[in-house]
């Protein structure tokens, strides 16, 4: 019955339903007439009577036809559903008979989908998810540019920001902020937290972020005599204050002072980065134009193009540079960028990493698709015979196609489900290792669109190549194929060529990925081992800014820092102490042009060198290697010419091969002379990139800014000095806020770029190696399997089994060898492309390349040997009978 029903499914027309109804009714009328005739009526009366008993024949016929149509339509759907379930369970049975194939495809889909979807999902909060602020495209951040130092985000002073507020017409609002770390001491859980100090219009006018509870800042909050207020970040509110809504209006202690909580921001309102736990209004009233420690953001007016807006800021800078040549004029210009990009302090790097991940993912995806394609091709190729037999036994073409497709569908469903699971797990795992301080919108969550994309790409491979033989079947006369036995050896030349190409391509991409991964691992290792020129492990950094109100004169600032240095140096556990500006690796770079008297070069044309100011004790505290002479002391400004300590890079450049001590160096565009009293090692300053920077250290007494960094050297863990150092500062000025951090935090941030990507890439490399090995094994083994017939023929003709086997293995080695060659070319190109991300630049690691090459050639050999040995053990005659 079901066969006939199935038959009806296809194109049973309206007309045939009518015919069927007619047949049923005719049978009845004929039969009834015959009965009546047998009961004694004459034939024509009997006929008449039968018709009369039927009633309105036309109406009956019509109603039966429509009833039948309705039934057919419903049956159609049920049948299709039943058919699908049937097809799938049949496919499951078939696949269970070849678990190797099924497992390979499923594993490949899982890894391919999981890797692609998770990388996109993890990157989504950084690049694609929109900022949580209305009309966020109008938000920009500005920075001073120091072209020589390659620095674009140097800060502003409040006086400068006020000038921009007055003059830039295309900005709807200009805000400013900085951040620091504070002690939360209310309750019994003192906690150190990063806080943002923002202009009162930052939330209300610039970001336009509405608070979850209470209010954000108003201009009065920064006014004279205003109470201390704080707005909490959602995470601090949840974690420390148990998400208690009544917190608004109560008071918490920040750095020992009571602050009234006036509001709680929404969870998504991250500013300027995820680690910030609360915000204070900026209440400074400094007019010191040179105290440039504040960041400037702006919301451009509606309709203002970003480039135009930034251009107006730049032209204002140009006029300010004329008015203030010693302050604004020192900068090369102004840089502006969308807020998302600017807040993400590793934006360029992250974008590069993303590109690298993308490359790796695409590589893995290519391998995955090649795998699935290769083994599906191999499998279906050998099944053409089976299909031919079934076809000649009368299986419908549609039936065969449906069966093949349903196998692929089943694999895609299972692989897709597992891939989704893998993507979810990977996304969660990768999300956990990302540093919270990098600006992002929300947490990484599985991106559905990407998941669908990955599913579509990977799952289409088995679908396409599952369908291919079915189409081949329908094109050709299968019975003749079977008769001729041409299918036996899988002799379709096109298919064989395709498979060879797949192996070569797969090995190539695999070798390249593994090689590049090796480079990244090596680069991460090298960056971790890099000689920085100083010893960060034992350095504690205390940052403080002496307020202009308490210390109006430069001499007073200098006196404070000298007293603080003595107090810190005397604190228990401190081995050495000194202060410096700017701090190494802190992304604040100052430079000066350098030359020697009489070198004939215009001072404004001389090469730049990094310039720092250091106090007595600093070099010892930072563990900077001294090469010759002495370091700076407090009395170094006495006399006509100040002392200077240069790094070895400077000495080699200016006085190659000569003793620099006692010589004169001219610094700056004014060619100010300094006498070299000491030479120290070059130090990593502008990032950790494998080449320590050349620099000069001037005496601190020449430095005028208020913000400086105290470096304290500990015998062991530098954070153990936190208490004593804080007390030491307190003994000099109890009211001065001091921020503490371990120097290694900065080193970690600087090396993060080398370490972060490499872990993930290593994972991809491993996956690529695994997948490609599986794929190569599958294809080669299958190809050799197919050659058993040919091998049997040769052996029956007297060829030596080991020689036949050897040829098969050699063929496989040649194939993987071509792949390795392709891989080397690809690896070379990829290493060049990734150069900027590699510590110490691009290179090729012969060891990694050799390992990758050996693995793939080895896989090829093993994949050939196993079936070849099996073949050579069988009696040739028996083999000939197989198939």
């Amino acid at each position: 019955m079901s066969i006939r029903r199935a038959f009806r499914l296809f194109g049973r027309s309206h007309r045939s339903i009518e015919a069927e109804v007619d047949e049923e009714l005719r049978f009845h009328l004929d039969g009834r007439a015959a009965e009546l005739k047998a009961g004694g009526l004459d034939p024509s009366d009997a006929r008449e009577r039968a018709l009369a008993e039927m009633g309105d024949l036309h109406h009956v016929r019509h109603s039966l036809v429509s009833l039948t149509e309705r039934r057919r339509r419903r049956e159609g759907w049920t049948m299709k559903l039943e058919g699908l379930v049937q097809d799938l369970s049949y496919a499951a049975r078939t696949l269970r008979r070849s678990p190797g194939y099924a497992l390979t495809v499923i594993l490949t889909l899982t890894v391919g989908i999981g890797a692609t979807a998770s990388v996109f999902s993890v990157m989504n909060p950084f690049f694609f998810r929109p900022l949580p602020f209305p009309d966020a495209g109008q938000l920009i951040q500005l920075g001073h540019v120091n072209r020589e130092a390659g620095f674009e985000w140097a800060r502003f002073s409040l006086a400068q920001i006020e000038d921009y507020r007055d003059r830039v017409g295309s900005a709807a609002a200009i805000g400013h902020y900085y951040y620091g770390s504070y002690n939360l001491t209310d309750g019994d859980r003192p906690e150190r937290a990063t806080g943002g100090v923002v202009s009162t219009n930052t939330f209300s006018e610039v970001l336009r972020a509405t608070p979850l509870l209470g209010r954000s800042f108003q201009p009065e909050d920064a006014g004279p005599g205003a109470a201390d207020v704080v707005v909490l970040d959602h995470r601090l509110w949840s974690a420390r204050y148990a998400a208690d809504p009544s917190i608004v209006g109560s008071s918490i202690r920040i750095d020992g002072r009571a602050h009234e909580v006036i509001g709680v921001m929404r969870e998504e309102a991250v500013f300027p980065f995820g680690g910030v736990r609360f915000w204070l209004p900026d209440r400074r009233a400094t007019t010191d134009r040179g105290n440039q420690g504040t960041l400037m953001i702006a919301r451009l007016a509606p309709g203002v193009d970003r480039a135009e807006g930034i251009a107006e800021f730049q032209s204002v800078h140009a006029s300010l540079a004329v008015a203030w040549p010693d302050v604004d004029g020192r900068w090369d210009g102004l840089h502006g960028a969308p807020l998302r990009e600017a807040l993400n302090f590793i934006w360029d790097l992250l974008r590069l990493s993303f590109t690298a991940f993308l490359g790796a993912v695409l590589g893995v995806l290519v391998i995955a698709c090649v795998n699935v394609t290769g083994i599906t091709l191999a499998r279906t190729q050998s099944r053409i015979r089976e299909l031919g037999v079934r076809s000649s036994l009368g299986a419908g073409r549609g039936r065969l196609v449906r069966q093949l497709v349903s196998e692929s569908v089943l694999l895609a469903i299972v692989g897709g489900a597992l891939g989704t699971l893998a993507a979810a797990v990977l996304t969660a795992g990768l999300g956990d290792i990302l540093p919270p301080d990098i600006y992002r919108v929300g947490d990484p969550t599985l991106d559905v669109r990407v998941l669908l994309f990955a599913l579509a790409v990977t799952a289409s491979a088995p679908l396409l190549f599952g369908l291919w033989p079915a189409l081949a079947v329908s094109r050709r006369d299968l019975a003749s194929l079977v008769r001729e036995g041409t299918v036996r050896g899988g002799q379709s030349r096109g298919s064989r060529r395709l498979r060879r190409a797949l192996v070569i391509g797969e090995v190539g991409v695999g070798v390249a990925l593994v090689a590049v991964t090796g480079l990244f691992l090596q680069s991460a290792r090298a960056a971790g081992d890099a000689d920085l020129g100083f010893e960060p492990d034992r350095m504690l950094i205390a940052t403080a800014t002496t307020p202009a109100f308490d210390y109006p004169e430069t001499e007073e600032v200098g006196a404070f820092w000298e007293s603080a240095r003595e107090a810190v140096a005397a604190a228990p556990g401190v081995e050495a102490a000194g202060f410096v500006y700017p701090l190494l690796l802190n992304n604040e770079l100052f430079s000066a042009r350098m030359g020697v008297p009489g070198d004939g070069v215009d001072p404004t044309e001389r090469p730049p060198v990094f310039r720092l100011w250091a106090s007595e004790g600093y070099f010892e505290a930072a563990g900077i290697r001294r090469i010759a002479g002495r370091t700076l002391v407090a009395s170094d400004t006495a006399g006509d010419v100040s002392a200077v300590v240069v790094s070895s890079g400077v000495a080699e450049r200016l006085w190659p091969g000569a003793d620099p001590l006692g010589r004169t160096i001219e610094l700056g565009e004014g060619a100010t002379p300094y006498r070299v009293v000491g030479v120290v090692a070059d130090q990593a300053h502008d990032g950790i990139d494998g080449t320590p920077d050349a620099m000069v250290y001037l005496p601190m007494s020449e430095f005028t800014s208020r913000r400086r960094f105290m470096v304290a050297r500990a015998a062991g863990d530098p954070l153990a000095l936190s208490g004593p150092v804080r007390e030491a500062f307190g003994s000099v000025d109890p009211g001065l806020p001091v921020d503490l951090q371990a120097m290694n935090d900065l080193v970690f941030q600087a090396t993060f770029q080398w370490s972060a990507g490499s872990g993930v890439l290593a994972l991809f490399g491993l996956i690529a190696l695994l997948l490609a090995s599986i794929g190569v094994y599958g294809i080669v083994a299958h190809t050799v399997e197919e050659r058993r017939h040919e091998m049997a023929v040769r052996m029956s003709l007297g060829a030596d089994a080991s020689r036949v086997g050897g040829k098969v293995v050699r063929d496989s080695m040649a194939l993987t060898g071509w792949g390795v060659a392709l891989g080397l070319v690809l690896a070379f190109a990829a290493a060049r492309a990734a150069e900027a991300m590699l510590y110490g630049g691009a290179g090729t690691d012969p060891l990694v390349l050799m390992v990758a090459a050996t693995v793939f050639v080895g896989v090829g050999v093993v994949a050939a040997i196993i079936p070849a040995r099996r073949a050579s053990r069988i009696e040739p005659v028996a083999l000939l009978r197989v198939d």
Partner: protein
Amino acid sequence: MAATDRSILPGTLELLVLRVLRDEPSHGLGVARALRGRSGGVIDLKDGALYQALHRLENDGLVSSDWGHADSGKRAKFYTLAERGRTRLDAEVRSWHRYAEAVARVLGPEFARPGPSQAGRHGSGDTAPEPAS
């Protein structure tokens, strides 16, 4: 309802058709024959209505149909009681007897007649006495 009306009560046709098919699969002509014979000619219905009932029952999944060959050798459409039809028949028969009994009680003993109306007491609903065909 006129006393002489011999047309079938609404809803009972399906019940009777299911009952007939319970004995054996049959084509429409056979069902018509059985209905005429078993009711002693009392039940008079148009054969068209019977076929409509058969098709409705098939659409409801209570009977299934298949083409086969009649005794005459001609192709005929045979109807078979489906499992759902069997369950439905039991339920319908029970409710029919409850109804008939209720009607009999309302009519009272003075209108009582020996016969089918007593059958419901026996509980198993499908044992209504059949007149010889």
